[in-house]
């Protein structure tokens, strides 16, 4: 956190000053470790084993928060007969379909209505959880993660001692947890720990994602993501969501707050299609494009290589540096018909046709590349107005300082005018396919000499308004499913309440309390702590005076407190839903987790996760060891891209790649470097690509500080300066010791400072739930010195001794056979609906 979010870290340092303990679990000793109370070096990719160890410690020692767990989680629920755990099936859950290589997602259901409030029934979630993690002992954590038992116990004890009624602990994470084939399950495991300890929905608690880009939260809420509509409504899946009614039936929950989803979808379609969206035409739902499986970034790249994707917009990204497997990224770009890049500086992605490792190796010639490339200079953050959503869901408005230089324009300008041009090109078309474009509401007022569309007008549409009078709604509770309201993103509804830009509020912190509710605006409805109903006990009283934030006011008969209560304001703690209730009527007075269908935090997740209801330790796709816990080596439902360009190492113990390799960022640079490698003030601080190795590895391989080294995986070989440091330590795993190689990933072939990109080394493979890459847990080799380009391995070549094509040995006797969710261009049209 100190490395990549230094200014946010000031509050951690303040807390430390007041006695808080900082525990840092990270493969490397970083700037965060330097000021932490405890640092534990963990083997990359073993976080579930570590967190599972914490879960076991909490349960075995009765360190959970009993009232919280009993009332606010699904600990008491009974799981259906027939459920079998990974303990029973050596690393698989029941419901595994060997032929399809995926789970039957109905296999983990809860028995309807079954509960055991004593938590003793062997089929209740609490007991299943206990059994599931019974082997995640401190000794097992040592064997898997490399964290010695005494250190693990110190961490567990410190965490538990600081949790409960009077105290709370927070977890902070970043892509060190998400960039794994089990990333979503790592976060789940942390949720289980925090829920057991009663650390969710309370001040000083929570699981905080430290996100890396100014509005990466915003681009998830209003998603430039294939699978979502604004506000986390699902994009329709072709086979089942054939029309509006089918969509509502399949995708909108019947219980909990999601029961309101129909209002939000109708209002969004009204925002997009205005009067063309009517009850008769299912609110123009048929205009919406449908999904057939995974259309994520990596899949699109594969489709570029296979020439089914013809055109590509790259806006404020630099995928040849920042995305996995640089060679495949560039091959995709070479096979495009056209590419549009918008950025502040001339980044590598825009010049892939000119400079690349393939050029250096003499494999491609510029004149042979047919891709047409457009480069548009972008406006900077000071040259346009608009809102960013930060990592705590807070929308903050930026005012425009000056006009952009030259041809530079905002994305708002580009996409608005591109839309206008396209609508002109299609004007008069009678083709039904073009109605979806021509019927869009696309008439934002423009201002200034460049005819910039008004960002405030767009924000107002996002907020929502009543169609009859065009007045901004106050929040999503004003939205209707009868078509009388429009709202672009329901969770942002309220950001323009009272026709005022709430995101632009800037009442100084010194004039507010610690919640600072009048600075910017947080979704939903300006709540700063999600699920804060859980900060009070079932009767609605704060668990403790120290940690109070919202509570039930007996006199006024409503929820009140420092923060906006994340609950139905007038729903008393004593309320219990009537039998047969629907939608939000199903929420009881003790259901703080209102976005869950049953209002409870899920220790056991009966649906939603593709690899099982409980997090399981699987080894990374390429690991140094066999899975010490189960016969099943790796996530059985991971997404593989089984192609010649994407060779893999042996699943474990590949002697060609004996070292652990992890990648990361540095304080001095920003992600793929487009906003830092061109700035002299940042470039001088970290001027070259380097690799960090331990003193032992340096001695073993003859690596000299400041000299060159070549790092090799089956995908590529890159070179880097050597930084020998005691901050990198060898890890003892089982009876063996493994060396680590650390690689920052910021550099590329352009900019003031240059170097090879770490992502050349990574493979295309993904977490099945969220299609996110693995960049953290690799295996690799390292040799001293530099290797001439012509001698470096091609992804599908075999030029360096020991670097071969994909090798697919058996992985433990219980590894399921089948296609393992392989996605290739062949089944991109397949029916993974």
């Amino acid at each position, binding site marked *: 956190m*100190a490395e990549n979010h*230094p*200014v946010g*870290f*000031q509050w951690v*340092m303040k807390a430390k*000053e007041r006695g808080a303990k900082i525990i840092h679990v990270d493969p490397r*000793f970083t*700037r*965060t*470790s*330097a*000021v*932490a*109370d*405890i*640092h534990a070096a963990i083997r990359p990719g073993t976080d579930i084993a570590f967190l599972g160890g914490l879960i076991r410690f909490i349960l075995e020692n009765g360190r959970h928060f009993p009232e919280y767990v009993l009332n606010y989680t699904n600990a008491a629920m009974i799981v259906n007969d027939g459920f079998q755990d990974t303990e029973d099936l050596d690393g698989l859950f029941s419901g595994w379909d060997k032929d399809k290589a995926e789970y039957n997602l109905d296999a983990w259901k809860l028995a309807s209505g079954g509960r055991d409030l004593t938590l003793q029934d062997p089929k209740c979630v609490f007991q299943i959880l206990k059994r599931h993690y019974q082997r995640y002992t401190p000794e097992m954590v040592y064997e898997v993660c490399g964290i010695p038992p005494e*250190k693990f116990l*110190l961490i567990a004890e410190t965490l538990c001692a600081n949790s409960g009624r009077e105290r709370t602990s927070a977890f902070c994470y970043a892509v060190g947890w998400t960039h794994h084939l089990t990333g979503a399950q790592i976060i789940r495991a942390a949720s289980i720990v925090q829920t057991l300890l009663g650390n969710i929905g309370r001040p000083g608690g929570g699981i905080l994602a430290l996100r890396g880009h100014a509005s990466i939260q915003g681009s998830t809420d209003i998603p430039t993501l294939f699978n979502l509509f604004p506000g986390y409504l699902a994009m329709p899946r072709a086979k089942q969501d054939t029309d509006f009614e089918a969509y509502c039936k399949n995708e909108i929950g019947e219980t909990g707050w999601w029961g309101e989803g129909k209002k939000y979808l109708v209002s969004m379609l009204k925002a997009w299609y205005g009067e063309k969206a009517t009850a008769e035409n299912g609110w123009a739902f048929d205009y919406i494009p449908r999904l057939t499986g995974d259309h994520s970034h990596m899949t699109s790249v594969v489709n570029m290589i296979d020439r089914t994707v013809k055109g590509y917009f790259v806006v404020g990204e630099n995928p040849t540096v920042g995305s996995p497997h640089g060679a495949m990224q560039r091959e995709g770009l070479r096979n495009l018909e056209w590419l549009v890049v918008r950025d502040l500086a001339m980044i590598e992605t825009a010049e892939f046709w000119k400079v690349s490792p393939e050029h250096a190796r003499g494999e491609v010639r510029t004149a042979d590349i047919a891709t047409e490339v457009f480069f548009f200079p972008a406006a900077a953050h000071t040259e346009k107005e608009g809102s960013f959503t930060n990592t705590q869901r807070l929308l903050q408005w930026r005012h425009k300082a000056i006009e952009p230089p030259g041809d530079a324009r905002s994305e708002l300008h580009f996409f608005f005018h591109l839309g206008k041009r396209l609508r002109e090109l299609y004007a008069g078309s009678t083709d039904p396919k073009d109605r979806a474009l021509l019927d869009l509401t696309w008439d934002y007022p423009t201002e200034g000499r460049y005819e910039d569309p008004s960002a405030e007008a767009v924000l107002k549409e996002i907020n929502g308004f009543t169609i009859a009078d065009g007045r901004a709604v106050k929040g999503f509770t004003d939205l209707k499913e009868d078509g009388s309201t429009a709202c672009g993103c329901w969770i942002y509804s309220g950001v323009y309440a009272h026709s005022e830009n709430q995101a632009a509020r800037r009442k100084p912190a010194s004039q507010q309390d610690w919640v600072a509710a009048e600075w910017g605006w947080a979704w939903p409805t300006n709540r700063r702590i999600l699920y804060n109903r859980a900060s009070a006990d079932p009767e609605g009283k704060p668990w403790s005076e120290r940690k109070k934030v919202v509570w039930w006011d007996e006199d006024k008969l409503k929820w009140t407190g420092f923060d906006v209560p994340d609950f139905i304001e007038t729903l008393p703690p004593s309320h219990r839903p009537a039998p047969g209730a629907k939608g939000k009527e199903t929420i009881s007075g003790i259901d703080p987790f209102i976005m869950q269908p049953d209002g409870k935090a899920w220790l056991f997740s009966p649906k939603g996760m593709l690899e099982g209801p409980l997090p399981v330790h699987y080894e990374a796709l390429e690991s140094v060891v066999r899975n010490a816990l189960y016969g099943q080596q790796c996530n059985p439902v991971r997404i593989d891209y089984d192609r010649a360009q994407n060779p893999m190492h042996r699943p474990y113990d590949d002697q060609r790649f004996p070292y652990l390799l992890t990648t990361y960022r*540095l*304080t*001095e640079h920003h992600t793929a470097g487009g906003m830092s490698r061109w700035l*002299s*003030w*940042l*470039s*001088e*601080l*970290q*001027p*070259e690509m*380097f690799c960090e190795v331990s003193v032992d590895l340096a001695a073993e391989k003859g690596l000299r*500080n*400041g000299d060159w080294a070549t790092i090799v995986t089956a995908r590529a070989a890159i070179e880097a*300066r*050597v*930084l*020998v*440091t*005691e*901050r990198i*330590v060898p890890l003892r795993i089982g009876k063996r010791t493994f060396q680590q190689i650390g690689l920052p990933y910021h550099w590329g072939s352009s900019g*003031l*400072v240059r170097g090879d990109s770490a992502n050349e080394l990574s493979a295309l493979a993904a977490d099945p739930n969220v299609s996110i890459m693995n960049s953290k847990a690799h295996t690799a080799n390292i040799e001293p010195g530099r290797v001439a380009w012509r001698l470096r391995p091609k992804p599908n070549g075999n030029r360096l001794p020991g670097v071969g094509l994909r090798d697919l040995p058996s992985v433990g006797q219980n590894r399921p056979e089948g296609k393992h969710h392989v996605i290739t261009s062949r089944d991109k049209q397949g029916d993974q609906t």
Partner: protein
Amino acid sequence: MPKGFFTDTSICIGCKACEVACKQWNQLPEDGFFFSGMSYDNTMQLDASTWRHVSFIERPVALSGQDAGAFSWLMSSDVCKHCQRAGCLENCPTGAIIRTEFDTVYVQPDICNGCGYCVVGCPFGVINRREEDGRAWKCTLCYDRLTDGMTPACAKACPTASIQFGELEDLHRDAHARVERLQAAGVKEAYLYGVDKDNQPGTEGLNAFFLLLDQPEVYNLPPDPVVPTKKAAESWRAMFYTALGAAAVAMAAVIATRGERAR
């Protein structure tokens, strides 16, 4: 009203915000793109164009109170010390270097002729000449900002308040309290460097002083810096007596010779 910096290295996270904030405000050029191989320190030292510099010290020694094995990583943001007896100032023959109304030491770029006397006058090696223009440059303690009551750029940016700016008296009080707090918490190695005349007679105290967690040398700071001009009066006196002695000897020799000759 004397002003200065108190740099508390015990809470420095090595982010280098101070280095960049300084370059931004003072519009300083970069100092070259050089991979040093010395931990995360690639600017290496204070220089004519680098007026804040963060050192990174990897030690095979545990820090008190930290459970991270026999290792610790110290970070410290170095800066011009704005000494009470400033060698650069006293060495400057042109009047380019002055002591401001804030008791800070400021190089006037319009007066400096690049003679370089100040460079050898600094016991910390802070001030240096810029190759491009030959003039001497160093931290101004944001003199321009101080004239309008603003905080210096580095102290304002510093995320963890490792760099504190204020009136010297307040800083002294806070710093002593901070050392006491750390000592009480078991960080016995915490101490102040250059806080006043008693602490550092050779400079008579620093307006930019530090809280350190190891010996000064570890941070590339001199353990007992002495401003050369501090010895100037003594030297002049010595020189005077030497000259006097020499004159006396010469005179005596002359008289003696005369006596000889007279005889």
